[in-house]
């Protein structure tokens, strides 16, 4: 796959279709992949990589990259294409300046996931079909891909590309994942349990803004939390209230716009399951206002800028079952 991608990228660079290529580049330890812009065939040969660790969603970079001259080639995994569409819906980048190639994805893992299996001192990782072998200075261990997939990939919502100029490889289908199971589990808890759960999770927050800055829905020119004039600006969670405030408002601001790409949870240095906040909104929206997948099509009307006269009343929150 990587070879085909490099070859196609070189071709498109050479024939002048694009001026730059947005992809992933290798790092020190196989797993520490960095998004990068490549301008020459040599750079591509030297550093371009596409493997099980290329989890970064590249679509948000298009906001910045399309402000530059020329056209850029971007590689999009299926779930990235939803973000791509959502950004287009919100006029956040110029489609004309992008050449999008859809690429397949078998699910991604990460250094953190591998380490969470108790491995340390990683010196190399081999991919062989569904087997991934991790070499460390202490031991070697082979995993089945599914064992070390990130949560968002284990509950992948779609292997289908919803936007591209061309595809490399086969397109997949929208999946019936069980991505709301954890939300449902939380919903089934008592309010006290839920409170305890979220308090212990959110109290870990260091307000590094990684979740916000990586989020393809958070592309505000100036975030309310950085804007002293907004009245709610905050730099550190000076009180547990501010932790709640930040995450509630952030989730609310992306409600109906969040494609559930899962980047927020991936980047959280404290492993707070932030996607469970966004998924709660998605689940509520699906249940109350009908299924809606942000980014599934360009130009669709997000549920929070929409209504029907027959919408449920807010009091449904008091009556819903099981709580």
């Amino acid at each position, binding site marked *: 796959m990587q070879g085909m991608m490099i070859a196609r990228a070189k071709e498109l660079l050479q024939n002048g279709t694009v001026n730059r290529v947005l992809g992933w580049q290798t790092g020190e330890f196989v797993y520490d992949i960095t998004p990068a812009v490549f301008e020459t065939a040599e750079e591509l040969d030297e550093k371009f990589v596409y493997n099980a660790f290329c989890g970064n969603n590249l679509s948000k970079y298009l906001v910045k990259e399309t402000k530059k001259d020329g056209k850029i080639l971007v590689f999009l995994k299926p779930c990235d294409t939803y973000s791509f569409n959502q950004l287009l819906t919100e006029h*956040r980048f110029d489609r004309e300046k992008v050449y999008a190639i859809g690429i397949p994805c078998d699910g991604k893992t990460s250094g953190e996931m591998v380490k969470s299996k108790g491995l340390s001192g990683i010196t190399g990782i081999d991919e062989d079909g569904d087997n991934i072998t991790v070499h460390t200075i202490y031991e070697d261990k082979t995993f089945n891909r599914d064992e070390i997939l990130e949560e968002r990939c284990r509950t992948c919502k779609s292997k289908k590309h919803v936007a591209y100029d061309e595809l490399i490889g086969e397109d997949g289908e929208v999946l019936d994942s069980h991505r709301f199971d954890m939300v449902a589990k939380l919903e089934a808890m008592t309010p006290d349990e839920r409170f305890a759960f979220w308090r212990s999770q959110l109290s870990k927050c260091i307000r590094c803004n990684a979740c916000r800055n990586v989020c393809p829905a958070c592309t505000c*020119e100036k975030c*309310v939390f950085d804007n002293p004039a907004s009245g709610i600006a905050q730099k550190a969670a000076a009180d547990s209230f501010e932790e709640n405030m930040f995450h509630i408002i952030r989730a609310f601001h992306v409600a109906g716009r969040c494609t559930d790409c899962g980047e927020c949870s991936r980047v959280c240095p404290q492993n707070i399951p932030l996607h469970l906040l966004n998924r709660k909104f998605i689940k509520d929206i699906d249940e109350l206002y009908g299924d809606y997948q942000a980014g599934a099509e360009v130009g669709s009307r997000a549920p929070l*800028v929409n209504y029907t006269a027959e919408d449920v009343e807010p009091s449904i929150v008091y009556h819903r079952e099981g709580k």
Partner: protein
Amino acid sequence: MQKIGVFVCWCGSNIAATVDVQAVSDTLAKEPGVVYATNYQYMCSESGQNLIKDAIKQYGLTGVVICSCSPRMHEATFRKAVASVGLNPYMLEVANIREQCSWIHKDKALATEKAITLGRAAIAKVQLNAPLQAGESPVVKRALVIGGGIAGIQTALDIAEAGFEVDIVEKQPTIGGKMAQIDKTFPTLDCAACILTPKMVECSQNDKVHIYSYSEVTSVKGFVGNFTVSIKKKARYVAENKCTGCGECTTKCPMKNVPNEFNLGLDNRRAIYIPFAQAVPKVATIDPNYCNMLKNGKCGLCAKVCTAGAIDYKQQDQVIEERYGAIVVATGYNPIKLDKFEEFDYSLSKDVVTSLELERLMNAAGPTGGTLLRPSDGTHPHTIVFVQCVGSRDTSGCGKPYCSKICCMYTAKHAMLIREKYPDTEVYVFYIDVRTPGKNFDEFYRRAVEQYGVHYIKGMVGKVAPRADGKIMVQASDLLANEQLHIEADMVVLAAAIEPDKSARPLATMLTASMDTNDFFTEAHPKLRPVESPTAGIFLSGVCQGPKDIPETVSQASAAAAKVIGLLVTAKLTTNPCVAHCNELMCNGCSSCERVCPYGAITYVEKEFRMPDRTTQLRRVASVNPAVCQGCGACTVACPSGAMDLNGFSNSQIMAEVDAICQK
């Protein structure tokens, strides 16, 4: 930091009895930014206003807080007062310490504490107020009247007389409304048609008045002075400009058994019809539900007999878009459906009729040619029972909780007319109360009782049951005599409650005009602005606002016309400056705001921005048209970056109020 003056009103004892006004002004005097605080008996009085004006001048106030009655009451008064001494009127906030404090609390300490908090919130808000300038918008010199009954007709004629174009939209094929169906009018007993039809004709002949009959309003956009209205002209399959109203077709049409709605179904008309002889416009209409030609493509007789060649089976509904400066709602009323009142047996017995049906049965142009005959067998009735308040003043849920107002008088009229014309007929009227407030009304009612010998019985009718022999047994209680009555009647006339026309509610939604729970339009103020809707540019005429008789309807119609004329003569309207605005530096151009704007006030522009790093960037940003924006604020919440904010109700102002209310 503003220099704020605080003015606490006693409102006589309305506030001062429950709120320690001195404590309020003393405490608020210590708030940051407050340089002057006082209290006074009536702030809205001239001397109260002078007090404010003097303080502004003396202390150089840049902000004013008035603790008084609801801002809905006197905010405008106070704004005008401060503006008169050069302070921007939007540098004023009102803390509502009467309706929302002194009138609802009894404990003086609590009420005082709350008044102080409300005052603090207003102070916190005014700290962040910015002077606002009202913009201007032109006024389209044309009015729309929705509904062509006597209310609409009168309003339209008055507006036209003042020299303005006015359109009437009437959903029926003719204007005239309910009054055209009425036989005589109380308390003068003059013939309704005789006084109405000249006005209808005047409408058709006045070149300032344009009638869209058989038409409906389908959408309303815009705002006061500048509404854009879509009117659907339903296909009547007859070219209005060709039809001479000769009526030849209406006699030749083979479809004879169409219930005649003008006579409330008491007789039949043809599939092509002119509702009544004096209809305006006097143009035939084909009823597509019955016309064989339209339904099955067979017949075409009317086209054959029409010498004017007016019949057009291919006619389509037509939507016309027109701009108006003002809209008058005159959608009128209907008697309620009586299916729920099983005890009166209305649906089972033909001889149990509503009062409006009785009007037709007594009208010379009605189904019986003006002779009162029983609908069932055409015989002359000798005993007639009138039942009052059928569905009026009914809190059981079957009817309406309000008094329909007109029934007492028209029943007296009916009773009197029957007794006059048919002295051998006994007339009983069962009533809860007889309400006759109105010029010459009580005299009229007394004549019915005293001169015409109508039997008025205070009591309830329990059961109306037709008998096999055609008689109707009326079981009732006489509350004064405290006895049960059984009357063998030939006819029973039900004074059905009246309710707003069904078209009113969807119309209210289109107009963004508010309604009460009974679907009557709400007036801007029940006493002081009874003919205006709270929505600027929307006026109310007739029963759509509440039950009325004809003279009241006509006076309100003229009043509404006067208000409309007052609006239309204005060259430019000052617009509400409390509108949304976009901070372009923060705007993402995401379109969320545009999608929630009900007025289409937001558009997007590509604009070049100089970035902090001295480069320029082309960005898509929202732009609000302040003349179109009505200031609801939906966009401000839809906007994730907070680029959209609302003048007068900014994020920071509301949060300052929240802070002030929550602390302490």
